[in-house]
């Protein structure tokens, strides 16, 4: 395909500017997102609660009754996760009267703003969707998703004339720019479908609720607000009657949801959580969401009257409308919650490959501005190199540090949630400072070695804190623990390889670059 030279020039400029602005945030989102693929495993790993017997439905009933009795906010709206394979304990969540989400289990009936055993998974997820910035972080990541989409379109257009011919070309040699360009292109093209999907679903997840107030008057004639609940939830919105009434027991709801699913031809409906409106009121409505295998958008839900059990609405696989099918597919595609563990590991690799894409983009930016005949490089190259090392390798150190803190904090009598956050953001800030002060060629390999060490400390800290050393967990067949430790060891090995490659490049590569060791003073 022929492109006008002008289009090519403009798109190249747009691609590199968008990459410059959004690349750092995208690196963090992809690295943290890859680890977030293990968000079901992380709470188990954090608490080592592998031997815990799952609570019974009677325990869940007790939690439900306690929540309704204790918390005013929970009487308006209460979420409750059934005890099961995912979490041995039943958990509850509600919006308190100040508008803050609270979480409880039978051990923490008063509620806390962070789910107690999954603080580590929450932190990594927070970095993924908001960089850890409260409130505006999510909107910022929404804008970053849009810029990412723009970078994908412009990137493909620039590369289009050579896309097929150069697909499997990876040309190492003296021309480093071409090598990085080849690597950047092949990863970008081969994972393009996933990238397109992440850009679109990421923007939807971050921005949909921000844009609704804007779209409402603009294109929906002010009638959008009234239409949203029916499009997104299963249960109809009802008003409380003010009359108290005895609700059916939780066990009966559980059975009822399975029976309704079976009537709709779904044999393996496994209730995961429920949402209860106006608990204890005569108009109480319960919505039960459950998982079904062999479906994209594995979650389906049924809503019924919590007092009489009369069915109010059904959104199950094969029996749901376009809104719910699209919504569930959006979630499932973004979170990789379909298929089996192969999909989970595939998403993990796609996440790391994406992180590499943005890192190599920054390297290309520096390489294409390199002064080929001078040791001293331009200011912009040096700043970019420092920022890339400090932010990107810094966040790798930071996340690993939070894992180590999660294991060691309870041993030292510290609050785990606070310790993880201090370790994470503290380590990140120190890495950025280190990268700002040292020559980039030195900082990159020092921080990579640091990342390798801290990441390797993850299975050690877990062994020390819980006694579940990797081999012990493997022999006992606790694959969830093995998975997290193995992921850490694999990442540490990757950091070692990168550190060695950086050291080699600094010693033996072209000296006219920010990545070469400064020559000894003469």
């Amino acid at each position, binding site marked *: 395909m022929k492109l006008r030279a002008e289009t090519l020039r403009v798109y190249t*400029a*747009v691609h590199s500017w968008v990459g410059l602005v959004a690349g750092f945030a995208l690196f963090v989102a992809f690295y943290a997102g890859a680890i977030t693929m293990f968000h079901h495993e992380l709470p188990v790993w954090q608490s080592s609660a592998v031997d815990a017997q799952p609570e019974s439905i009677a325990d869940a009933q007790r939690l439900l009754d306690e929540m309704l009795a204790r918390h005013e906010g929970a009487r308006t709206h209460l979420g409750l996760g059934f005890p099961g394979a995912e979490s041995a304990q039943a958990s509850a969540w509600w919006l308190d009267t100040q508008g803050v989400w609270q979480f409880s289990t039978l051990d923490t009936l008063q509620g806390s703003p962070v789910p107690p055993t999954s603080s580590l998974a929450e932190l990594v997820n927070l970095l993924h969707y908001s960089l850890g910035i409260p409130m505006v972080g999510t909107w910022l990541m929404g804008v970053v998703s*849009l810029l990412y989409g723009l970078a994908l*379109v412009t990137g493909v257009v620039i590369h289009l004339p050579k896309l097929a011919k150069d697909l499997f070309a990876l040309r190492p040699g003296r021309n480093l720019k071409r090598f990085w360009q080849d690597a950047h292109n092949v990863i970008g093209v081969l994972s393009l479908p996933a990238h397109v999907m992440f850009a679109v679903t990421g923007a939807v997840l971050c921005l949909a609720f921000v844009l609704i107030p804007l779209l409402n008057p603009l*294109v929906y004639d002010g009638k959008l607000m009234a239409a949203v609940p*029916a499009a997104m939830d299963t249960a109809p919105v009802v008003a409380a009657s003010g009359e108290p009434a005895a609700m059916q027991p939780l066990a009966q709801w559980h059975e009822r949801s399975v029976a309704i699913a079976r009537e709709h031809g779904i044999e393996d409906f496994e209730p995961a959580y429920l949402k209860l409106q106006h608990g204890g009121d005569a108009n109480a409505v319960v919505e039960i969401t459950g998982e079904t295998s062999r479906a994209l958008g594995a979650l389906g839900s049924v809503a019924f009257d919590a007092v009489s059990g009369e069915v109010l609405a059904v959104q199950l696989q094969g029996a749901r409308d*376009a*809104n719910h099918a699209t919504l569930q597919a959006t979630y499932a595609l973004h979170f990789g919650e379909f298929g089996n563990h192969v999909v989970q590991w595939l998403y993990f690799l796609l996440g790391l490959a994406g992180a590499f894409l943005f890192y190599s983009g920054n390297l290309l930016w520096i390489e294409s501005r390199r002064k080929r005949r001078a040791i001293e490089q331009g200011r912009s190259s040096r700043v970019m190199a420092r920022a890339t090392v400090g932010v990107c390798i810094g966040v790798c150190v930071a996340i690993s540090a939070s894992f180590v803190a999660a294991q060691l904090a309870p041993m030292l009598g510290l609050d785990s949630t606070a310790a993880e956050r201090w370790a994470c953001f503290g380590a990140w800030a120190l890495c950025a400072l280190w990268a700002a002060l040292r020559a980039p060629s030195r900082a990159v390999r020092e921080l990579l070695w640091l990342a390798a060490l801290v990441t390797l400390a993850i299975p050690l800290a877990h062994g020390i804190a819980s006694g579940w050393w990797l081999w012990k967990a493997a022999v006992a067949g606790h694959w969830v623990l093995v998975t997290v430790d193995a992921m850490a060891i694999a990442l540490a090995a990757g950091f070692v390889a990168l550190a060695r490659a950086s050291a080699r490049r600094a010693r033996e590569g072209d000296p006219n670059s920010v990545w070469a060791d400064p020559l000894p003073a003469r």
Partner: protein
Amino acid sequence: MWGRATAGALAGFVLAAALVGLVGRLWPGPWQATLVPGMVALFPLWIGIAAAAFRFGSGLRAWAWIGGSAVVTLGALWLLQATGWVA
């Protein structure tokens, strides 16, 4: 560059939103039935228009074409809503 970038980001958003609204209203069945698919389609449309905006020769041209299309599309949507021709 900034003229074309803002044309894609701002006028492009209005055009994408108006297109989603118009297609949703003309689609068989109530417009509420395609809300979420419309919301998902909005983002690739917006990104596509923003990318296309850079193909115009100048910011002024980009604003004229994209802004003009947005006004026409939005006008058609509002006309349908006001007259109730399509429920």
